[in-house]
């Protein structure tokens, strides 16, 4: 297990390094100099040079790359070109919206998908199964931002149970904050729940055909007992992988959903940064998202290996 973890850790670091080079290189291709963009066309050469020095743009490219990466490792993401505030502060503020939203959605999606998938698998081929599968087929086809608009139409505009947008903040207590994230989280969770329910169902169906399930029944467990004690637990292995994958979809999906609800999260930050050509903010947010995906996949790999010993020897 230790060797496997170590190997995975090395490949994790490599992935992060390569990803950061790719992101840095792509942003470097961007035409125009941020300093002259900030100062406009009439800037004096010496003010321009001073600003370039202040932003760290006056050193060679490879040095800038190492400054950027080194800075991120110590929590210094540089200074926003447009706001002149530390990028790390801007990101930290927005994180408190995007991360809770993604986690909220993940919780909802799991809470919906598990019972639905287990129910469908236990009723295989019967009307209950067909109904759940039909619903998931529909859930996969619905764009989450459209579903979000429908939720606004029904629950905010017509029933007035929620606000149509905006974020109340966490200062007035966790429930106020969660309340304003509820519609976005539902919108984000539904399509993911549909996928997860299908994975849960097919994983369970695979396992129901295994010999040990017959053994479980033979030793006197009822269908239901066998399903819960031996089926669900084993089905969790593939389901866990999908949950890990979904987290990255949720984080990226949150960027779009934030637009529907005018939430001040990472998505809003990155779109504002794109329109004002604040490339250092774009660079850092993208790196952060990619970092999150890579870390989550790493953790899933480890969890996977911990649950299923066969995997450790295979790699």
């Amino acid at each position, binding site marked *: 297990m230790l060797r496997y973890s170590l190997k995975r850790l090395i490949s994790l670091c490599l992935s992060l390094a390569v*990803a950061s080079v790719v992101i840095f290189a792509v942003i470097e291709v961007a035409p125009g100099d941020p300093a002259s963009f900030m100062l406009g066309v009439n800037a004096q050469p010496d003010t321009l040079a001073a600003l370039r020095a202040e932003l760290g743009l006056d050193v060679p490219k490879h040095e800038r790359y190492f400054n950027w990466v080194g800075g991120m490792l110590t929590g210094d993401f540089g200074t926003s070109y447009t706001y002149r505030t530390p990028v790390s502060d801007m990101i930290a503020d927005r994180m408190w919206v995007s991360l809770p939203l993604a986690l909220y959605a993940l919780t909802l999606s799991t809470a919906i998908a598990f019972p639905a998938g287990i129910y469908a698998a236990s009723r295989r081929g019967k009307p209950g199964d067909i109904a759940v599968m039909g619903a998931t087929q529909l859930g996969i086809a619905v764009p989450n931002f459209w579903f979000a608009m*429908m939720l606004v139409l029904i629950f905010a505009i017509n029933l007035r149970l929620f606000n149509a947008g905006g974020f109340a903040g966490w200062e007035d207590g966790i429930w106020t904050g969660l309340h304003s994230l509820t519609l976005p989280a539902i919108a984000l969770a539904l399509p993911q729940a549909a996928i997860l329910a299908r994975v849960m169902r097919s994983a369970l169906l695979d396992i129901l055909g295994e010999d040990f399930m017959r053994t479980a029944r033979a030793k006197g467990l009822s269908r239901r007992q066998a399903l819960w004690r031996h089926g669900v637990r084993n089905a969790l292995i593939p389901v866990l992988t999908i949950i890990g*994958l979904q987290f990255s979809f949720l984080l990226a999906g949150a960027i*779009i959903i934030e637009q529907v609800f005018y939430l001040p999260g990472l998505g809003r930050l990155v779109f504002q940064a794109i329109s004002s050509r604040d490339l250092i903010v*774009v660079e850092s947010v993208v790196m952060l998202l990619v970092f999150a995906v890579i870390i989550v996949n790493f953790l899933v790999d480890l969890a996977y290996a911990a649950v299923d010993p066969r995997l450790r020897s295979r790699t």
Partner: protein
Amino acid sequence: MSRNLILGACLSSLVVLAALISFVWTPYDHAALDIPAKLQPPDAQHWFGTDHFGRDMFSMIMVGARTSIAVALVAVGIGMALGVPLGLTAAARKGSWLDELIMRGNDLVFAFPSLVIAILITAVFGAGAINAIIAIGIFNIPVFARITRGAALSLWEREFIMAARVAGKGAARISAEHILPNVANLLIVQGTIQFSLGILAEAGLSYVGLGAQPPTPSWGRMLADAQTMVGIAPHLALIPGFAIILTVLGLNLMGDGLRDWLDPRIRVARA
């Protein structure tokens, strides 16, 4: 053929047909403004109603189908054109440094959701349909590489491949002549699924302004325009949404149906 396949194929061809017909005929000019007739709900004159500029929604949906289909189709093409050869190569050189390099490269690209790729490209080159195609296309490459490699690996163990090797064929020829035809079905099924995911991704990208730009009509941007008016004219949001759902549903049903019809044994990874 299953009911799924027939229903899915009908829905998908309906959308493709609408897109094709829009090249020669739409009920109205999709870009023609008619402010006095704005925000009309669907009626006999405007089957899907009109938008906030009085443009005919039915015509816009028809023309918008072109954008969705074109972006998703080209993105699947990019994914297949690059991913399949990579997967075949990795399988042919199983365990070598090349295999390792391709698979780790795959993992790396997987860490960039298509939205993130689109954000990067847009930040540098500006928004547009081409960027959406590239972003979704890049995202598709590892999907096809992985599924091709997986299927090809098991084929390499089979006797008829052994026979081809004994006959003196090289790895490249075996991949092209024997492996590829045998993974084609799998690729068609996965292609259908990626196509439907591409439609969804395109809608999302143009909704946030990273996809097709005005005046090119697109379903995602119609939804973005509808957002502030959803309370007074719900049809603005309902109709493009239904168009997306029906298209994606049709493609997914077709993918499932094709899978069962082409080969009941194959299993397709659903992203």
